[in-house]
């Protein structure tokens, strides 16, 4: 790793890299009047560490966190790492069925979930009372990873992604070296989920390390986001996904916010007119970031100078291979079943179509080469949704595509009703992955060789018996 942070090799990294700092320094603001300073966070982490240890978690152990964004999530994660255990993050929006699948596959010894959560629609964070339960059949960690995250789905190979403490530290170090990233004493108002890599490393972990205050708005509304910015005088950066640019660009007359210095989003680019409307309205830089769960931040254009391209982050080596972007990565990040088409010979195959400019090194990303789509920053594997749907009793065939939303074309078995099919899918697939539009058809179009057609132009011509 490049110079910057010395990599500790034991759980001491949590204190050294994340928790160290002046006791009275506010590091988290999860509500306008609920600021947490470092002394408070350290005490909370110690308390959760004691609870997890009492439940049997030890160095080399494993725990799954199935918690909404909350102080409880942060405290339990840091406590697990401080014990030297491996933490599996499960998005709290997953269904019980999906959580069970993940637990069966990753076999953590303990599961921390919400016994009670204050949550409501549009809440950026929740007050959570957590519970620790032992997971039958759980095993200690069988890899050196500190963190396991699920990619766009929970089944199939190369879906469980592991990162070692050193990988996380290396990513924090990259952020330190990127011009345009907020520095100590500044604030990040984050709309990016802290369960996923951008919000977790780019917001929470980097913020803790660099002394950047992490602020979550009270609600994910435009008004609350701008109120969170206005609540402090420190230079402030917004961190989110493209939707938030669109939301904030739609504010006709935002209040003056002299402390707002920029906004950074991960994910696909917004349309040029939305970009221009945002810059015109707020007069600040609008930056874009390219990253993956496997590696974290890979490339950035934080000043909007290279749009639509990004410059590789320090230490990242990218190449184009048959139209696909590959990134140098010494070891495979995948845990369990590995698809060789995702990592081989020291290269991560991103499945992103793209190119690297031989003269400037700038990287263009031109969309996915597989069935993964991004919905509000959350990755959804359409093929997983399609397989689940096609496997339901009462379904004779299904194709799931993404236009402006996830859409399903489904052939029902004789006597089957769409209501029941939707009900069954709700049990198996998280809400954000489910089809928003349904077309019941007699027959799905196929190619001459019998393959299902996924071209939306063709699908749109298939007569529907029922359309929702």
């Amino acid at each position, binding site marked *: 790793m490049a110079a910057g942070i010395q990599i500790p090799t034991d759980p001491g990294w949590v204190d050294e890299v994340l928790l160290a700092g002046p006791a009275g320094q506010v590091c988290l603001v999860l509500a306008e009047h609920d600021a947490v300073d470092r002394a408070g966070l350290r005490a909370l982490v110690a308390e959760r560490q004691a609870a997890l240890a009492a439940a049997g978690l030890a160095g080399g152990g494993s725990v799954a966190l199935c918690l909404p964004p909350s102080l409880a999530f942060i405290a339990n994660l840091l406590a697990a790492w401080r014990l030297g255990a491996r933490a599996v993050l499960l998005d709290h929006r997953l269904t019980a069925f999906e959580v069970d699948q993940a637990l069966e596959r990753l076999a953590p010894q303990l599961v921390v979930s919400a016994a009670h959560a204050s*949550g*409501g*629609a*549009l*809440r950026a964070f929740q007050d959570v009372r957590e519970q620790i339960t032992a997971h039958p059949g759980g095993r200690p960690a069988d890899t050196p990873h500190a963190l396991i995250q699920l990619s766009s789905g929970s089944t199939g190979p190369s879906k469980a992604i592991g990162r070692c403490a050193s990988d996380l530290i290396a990513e924090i170090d990259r952020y330190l070296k990127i011009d345009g990233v907020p520095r100590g004493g500044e604030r990040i108002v984050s709309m990016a989920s802290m369960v996923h890599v951008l919000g977790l490393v780019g917001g929470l972990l980097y913020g803790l390390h660099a002394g950047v205050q992490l602020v979550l708005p009270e609600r*994910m*509304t*435009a*008004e609350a986001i701008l109120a969170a910015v206005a609540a402090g005088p420190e230079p402030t950066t917004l961190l989110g996904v493209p*939707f938030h640019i*669109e*939301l904030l660009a*739609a*504010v*006709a007359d935002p209040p003056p916010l002299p402390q707002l210095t920029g906004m950074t989003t991960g994910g696909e680019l917004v*349309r040029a007119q939305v970009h221009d409307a945002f810059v015109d309205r707020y007069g600040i830089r609008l930056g874009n970031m390219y990253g993956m769960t496997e590696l974290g931040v890979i490339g950035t254009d934080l000043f909007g100078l290279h749009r639509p391209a990004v410059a590789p982050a320090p230490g990242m080596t990218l190449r184009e291979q048959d139209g696909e972007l590959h990134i140098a990565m010494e070891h495979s990040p995948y845990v369990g079943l590995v698809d060789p088409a995702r990592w081989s010979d020291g290269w991560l195959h991103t499945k992103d179509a793209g190119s690297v400019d031989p003269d400037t090194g700038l990287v263009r990303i031109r969309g996915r080469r597989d069935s993964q789509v991004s*919905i*509000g920053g959350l990755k959804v594997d359409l093929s997983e949704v399609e397989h689940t749907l096609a496997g339901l009793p009462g379904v004779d065939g299904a194709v799931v595509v993404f236009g*402006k*939303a996830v859409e399903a074309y489904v052939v029902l078995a004789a006597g089957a009703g769409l209501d029941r099919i939707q009900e069954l899918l709700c049990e198996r697939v998280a*809400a*954000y992955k489910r089809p*928003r*539009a349904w077309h019941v058809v007699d027959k799905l179009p196929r190619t001459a060789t019998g393959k299902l057609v996924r071209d939306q132009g063709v699908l749109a011509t298939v007569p529907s018996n029922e359309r*929702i």
Partner: protein
Amino acid sequence: MAEESEPHRAQVVAMLATYGERRPEEVPETVDSLELAWLVHQIEQRYGKPFDVDDDVLARMTTVGGACAVLAELGYEAAA
């Protein structure tokens, strides 16, 4: 509880359609969390006042029909 009305429905669908440049017929009946944030903002802009409601009211706005019923209940008049 107030029932949704046709003018409310047309208005809610029109407000949702402005997100992602959709046609009204492309707006699904379900309202996801991003669309809800969008809808809240559109309501605030259209009526010129904060839409400051409790979580349980927002929780009922996860369908177009539910959002219409809430607007009618809170006395938000649908545009003619």
